[in-house]
């Protein structure tokens, strides 16, 4: 199992356990993380599953279509990612993922 710490904007943290191959978005949805809307269901078509992850976290760099879609979120940061495009791997165990105040 891979433990992910979802850090809510109010400072609280939800700990969730996922499996390799699952997307970060799916783990969030399955864990009832309300900040992740994921309105398109994971097709990289809505930009409503935004998270922010430290640049030194063990996450693969962005490729298309995420790279084109990510700047459609409100005020993207260098740390901004779309969680539907991040596939959980063992290296991510213990990683903290920051959730936005709102997706739009």
């Amino acid at each position, binding site marked *: 199992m891979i433990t992910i710490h979802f850090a809510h904007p109010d400072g609280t943290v939800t700990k969730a356990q996922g499996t390799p191959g699952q997307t970060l978005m799916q783990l969030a*949805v399955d864990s*009832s993380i*309300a900040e*992740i*809307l*994921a*309105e*398109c*269901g*994971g*097709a990289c*078509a*809505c*930009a409503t599953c935004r998270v922010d992850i430290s640049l030194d976290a063990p996450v693969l760099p962005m490729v298309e*279509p995420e790279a*084109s*879609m990510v700047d*459609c979120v*409100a005020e993207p940061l260098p740390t901004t990612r779309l969680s539907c495009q991040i596939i959980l791997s063992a290296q991510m165990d213990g990683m903290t993922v920051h959730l936005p105040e709102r997706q*739009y």
Partner: protein
Amino acid sequence: MNSLPDAFAPLSQAFAQDPYPAYAALRAQPGPTYFADVDMWLLSRADDVMRVIQDTTLMRGTETVFSPEERRALQRAENFHDIPHHERFVQNNLLESDGPTHARLRRQVFRTFTPGLIARQRPMIDTHVSALIDRLEPRGEFDFIADFAVHIPGHVIGRVIGVPDADCPRLRVWSEETVRFFDIDRTPEKKARAEAAVTEFYHYLLDLTAERQKSPREDVLSALIASMTRGDLSEDELIATCMLILMAGHGSTIDVLGTGLLALLEHPKAMATLRADPSTMQTTIQEMFRFQSPLPFFHRYVTKPCEIAGQQFQRGDRIGVLYGAANRDEFAFDAPDTFDIHRSPNRHLAFGGGAHFCLGNHLARLTMDVVFTQLLSRFMTISLSGNTPEYKTGLSVRGLKSLNISLR
């Protein structure tokens, strides 16, 4: 094989008034249900519907599914032949494409529909809605649909595309005459009117495109022209995209404005809460879309043998996804038949999902936000007048024929 529940009679007024018992009966069946009238397998449970719309081997358009001969036969069977402009701009567009073509077309326009850019339209929508209310206010009583809602979405979408204010009323007519030919009842008269509307709209857009080429503005048309200049979009694709944006958003937003207001009228506590606490507007609007999804039915084509919900499918089979049924699935939503304006998260499927997820969702929600904010802030009492409103019949749309209200 599952048989259709008796209550599932999409053309009946009884089904139109309350399709949810029929949807519940469909969801209770162990797998997909064959609907012979339209040669289609229906899926109604939220997880099955989501699985289908996320599956990239299931296509919305026919191009990658059938041979050119098969497509022509299908087009003739659907009475979509011998209408050259309709074929060119309505039957071939972003919605009817898949794969790389769909991704390219969507990429050109998605950026103009981001929440940030759409939010800038709020003053324009405010002004338009406010003027409409000013005109209706002295009457006190009117039909919320015919006198008010029909004048909003097409106008707003037109302005977002870049159509001047004075020309926007024409868009509504073009859109409605084109969309009417999608009904099951495809009469020769409707066919001729649809082709005429598309032809007129085409020539109008050609002229406006020429104008914008000379002096670009911050609108969707100018963005699409820039795509065309870069070679990312053909002129036909530009025209078809503008037409689709209008047609997809106009009728559906009218319908959800009407059913949304009716839900508030039928749930006075919800209306009072929304009035007292406008911060609930966003969750209220989401719940309006879930509770009465304005486009409750879409389809996908099977491209290769597969199994879905225990049923084997072959290339060319058509699967119908019932968003209206999925959005009342008790396995996806607590108390699904309850109108709960605080529901969060509200992962409804009213905007579809997957690659074809509704492009205009932010504009539709903003339009509703403006309308309900203005109505609640300007009037202390909004009430139903006249008889119980009737819904339109059919499976593809969910909306009211009329909604007589009084405002004080």
